[in-house]
């Protein structure tokens, strides 16, 4: 059966072209091989006799594009049509995902069609396939023959019992070949989707086999030569998707996002919860395509352990902008510390998403910062509160300071990586002192983040020494090998 490779993100399915001898199975593959662009196909392998009769099988691997981030690799096989090659046909049918039964439209070939189809059913039954597991498409080939039966008659004789989807084709002229390939590919992918998509599996109503095989519709007597694709209707599931969404989980998932950050509104006026944010999971816990596939996440999407994990429902108040105590540089560097009881949004941290936080509201460019002139950096370190109510002074060190100089020196944290320093007015102070300050701050922060010690002043000498030092060849095993006519004797121990 199908192979689903999460590492390479590809799905490979096996399609077998079945049918009586000389009905055009190999011709189908040859036309496909001729017309598919070179970059999407490999060489076609044909194990045929000298008279171009398929001896074992033909094999054509194709790449038919991507579906939801998975590339679809189709492996097309044909079987030998002759009756006495049944053992080979049975071998090729092993692990099949879909069958295209190529029927000969000629009136005198109908007994061979029946015999071959009976043989197909027997072989599938020997592999213990159920009928709904292996989709079958019937391709009425050789429609241009003068003695070809009309489609109504073919359908009545051949397809009356199960009503498989069917197409018309003139394979040697390339008509209807790709329509058959598209249709069987879509049927197979849909059956895989029905099998593995949780939305389909958890569907309470509707049997899929009935929707996949609609009731027979009367066909007009003379139909134009067009592919008949309406026979296969894809089951629609918009209502089941709506049933599966759980609004309570959605609320829990968005809750920590609102508590993050500075508590202010975004510059655009929208609150953080309304901002579009990247989501690794939909509300049903399904990993969205385009995100890295971690095995642990993929293995545990059972409905009981739905993402996100259950969190205690508490009302956390975001820190207010005005009442927040001044935070030093080191405390505020990677991200502002949440409240101790605040839940951590594990999904976003694990995937390394940008934790977007609104920037602090800057004063208007015309207004000078309160309490000082144009030099916020180099002024004296003592904060000068501009507005300090009398009742807050008695609370001591942790008392929230309304608007101080230090609060303006604080770097603006845009995400977890970069620090945007506030703009320095150029003409305010001599440059060397500003450089000294930035130098130290930068090293403290980067050392904290990478977990390394800040470089000392002796590092420049060490770096020069290490550049000069060359690898000693005599220390390597290759360097010890002796050269000359006795090299085999000397190097024997090494080998």
């Amino acid at each position: 059966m199908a192979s689903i490779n999460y590492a390479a993100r590809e799905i490979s399915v096996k399609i077998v072209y079945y049918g009586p001898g000389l009905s055009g199975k190999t011709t189908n593959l040859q036309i496909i091989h001729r017309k598919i662009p070179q970059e999407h196909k490999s060489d076609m392998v044909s194990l045929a006799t000298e008279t171009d009769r398929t001896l074992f099988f033909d094999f054509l691997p194709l790449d038919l594009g991507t579906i939801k981030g998975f590339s679809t690799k189709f492996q097309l096989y044909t079987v030998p049509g002759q009756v006495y090659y049944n053992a080979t046909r049975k071998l090729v049918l092993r692990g099949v995902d879909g069958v295209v039964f190529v029927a000969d439209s000629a009136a005198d070939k109908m007994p061979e069609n029946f015999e071959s189809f009976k043989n197909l059913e027997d072989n599938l039954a020997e592999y213990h396939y159920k009928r709904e597991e292996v989709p079958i498409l019937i391709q009425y080939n050789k429609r241009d023959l003068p003695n070809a039966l009309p489609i109504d008659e073919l359908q009545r004789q051949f397809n009356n019992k199960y009503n498989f989807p069917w197409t018309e084709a003139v394979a040697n002229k390339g008509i209807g070949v790709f329509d058959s390939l598209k249709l069987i590919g879509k049927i197979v992918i849909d059956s895989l989707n029905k099998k593995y998509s949780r939305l389909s599996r958890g569907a309470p109503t509707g049997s899929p086999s009935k929707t996949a095989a609609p009731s027979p519709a009367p066909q007009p007597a003379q139909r134009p030569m067009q592919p008949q694709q309406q026979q296969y209707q894809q089951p629609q599931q918009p209502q089941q998707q709506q049933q599966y969404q759980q609004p309570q989980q959605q609320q829990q998932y968005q809750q920590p996002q609102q508590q993050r950050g500075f508590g202010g509104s975004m510059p655009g006026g929208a609150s953080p919860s309304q901002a579009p944010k990247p989501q690794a999971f939909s509300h049903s816990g399904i990993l969205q395509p385009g995100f890295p596939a971690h095995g642990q996440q993929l293995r545990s999407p059972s409905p009981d352990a739905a993402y996100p994990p259950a969190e205690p429902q508490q009302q956390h108040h975001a820190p207010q902008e005005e009442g927040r105590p001044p935070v030093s540089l080191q405390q505020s560097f990677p991200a502002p510390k949440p409240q101790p009881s605040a839940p951590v949004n594990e999904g976003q941290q694990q995937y390394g998403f940008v934790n977007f936080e609104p920037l602090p509201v800057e004063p208007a460019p015309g207004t000078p910062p309160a309490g000082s002139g144009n030099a916020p950096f180099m002024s004296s370190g003592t904060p000068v509160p501009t507005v300090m109510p009398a009742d807050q002074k008695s609370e001591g060190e942790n008392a929230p300071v309304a608007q101080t100089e230090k609060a303006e020196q604080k770097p603006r944290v845009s995400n977890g990586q970069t620090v945007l320093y506030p703009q320095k007015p150029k003409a305010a102070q001599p440059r060397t002192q500003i450089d000294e300050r930035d130098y130290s701050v930068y090293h403290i922060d980067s050392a904290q983040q990478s977990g390394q010690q800040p470089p000392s002043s002796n590092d420049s000498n060490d770096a020069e020494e290490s550049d000069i030092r060359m690898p000693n060849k005599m220390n390597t095993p290759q360097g010890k090998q002796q050269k000359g006519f006795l090299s085999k004797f000397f190097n024997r121990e090494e080998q």
Partner: protein
Amino acid sequence: MKDMILFPEDIDRLNTVLAPLVTKAKLLLAVLINRDGRVLTHQGNLGQVDIVSLAALVAGNTASTLAIANLVGEAEFEAMYHQGKDKNIYIDSLDENTFLSVVFDDQTNIDRVKVFIRQFERQLKEAVHLVYAKDEDQIDLDLDMGNSSFQHIPQEDSQPQSRQPAYPPQQPSANDFGYPQQAQYYQPQPTPPATPPFGQYVQNKRRQHPPKVE
């Protein structure tokens, strides 16, 4: 019959066994192949050889040899060896679903290959067993195509090349008159990255030109 579902851990587990096997036995290629003809994983390099086709043919070869084994009264041949002039193939049956196919040349020999495959066989069997031990109900995969079709299938199926009329000839394109085929629109350039903090420049300059102490 179950589907073959490969997670990245499965591939890693198989490769950690296959890679030392290739190195120690000096193989050109080692492929783990499903009986259906599908590749689980491979290690080594065989130039431009299409491994998917190789796997399909080796699987067919193994399946047909199974019939020969039944004729002579064997349930299954445990190993097969195809000896060539330069390159040889050795196929070893791991379990009822999988076999290992290795390609090697005269850097090594068949006995050495057999010894090392025997050495790694138990680990390979364990890793392969875990591939098929998954529960299909645990898989969640959204493959809803909707109304879209496959991208790489050409659309001009019902109108083959031979049926298109030779006349009238195609209208000359704009390129024939020396004009560019597509208008050149203004495309905004990406914004340059923000300059690093000022202290970084100072630090680099100091590293390059250390002050000389007299």
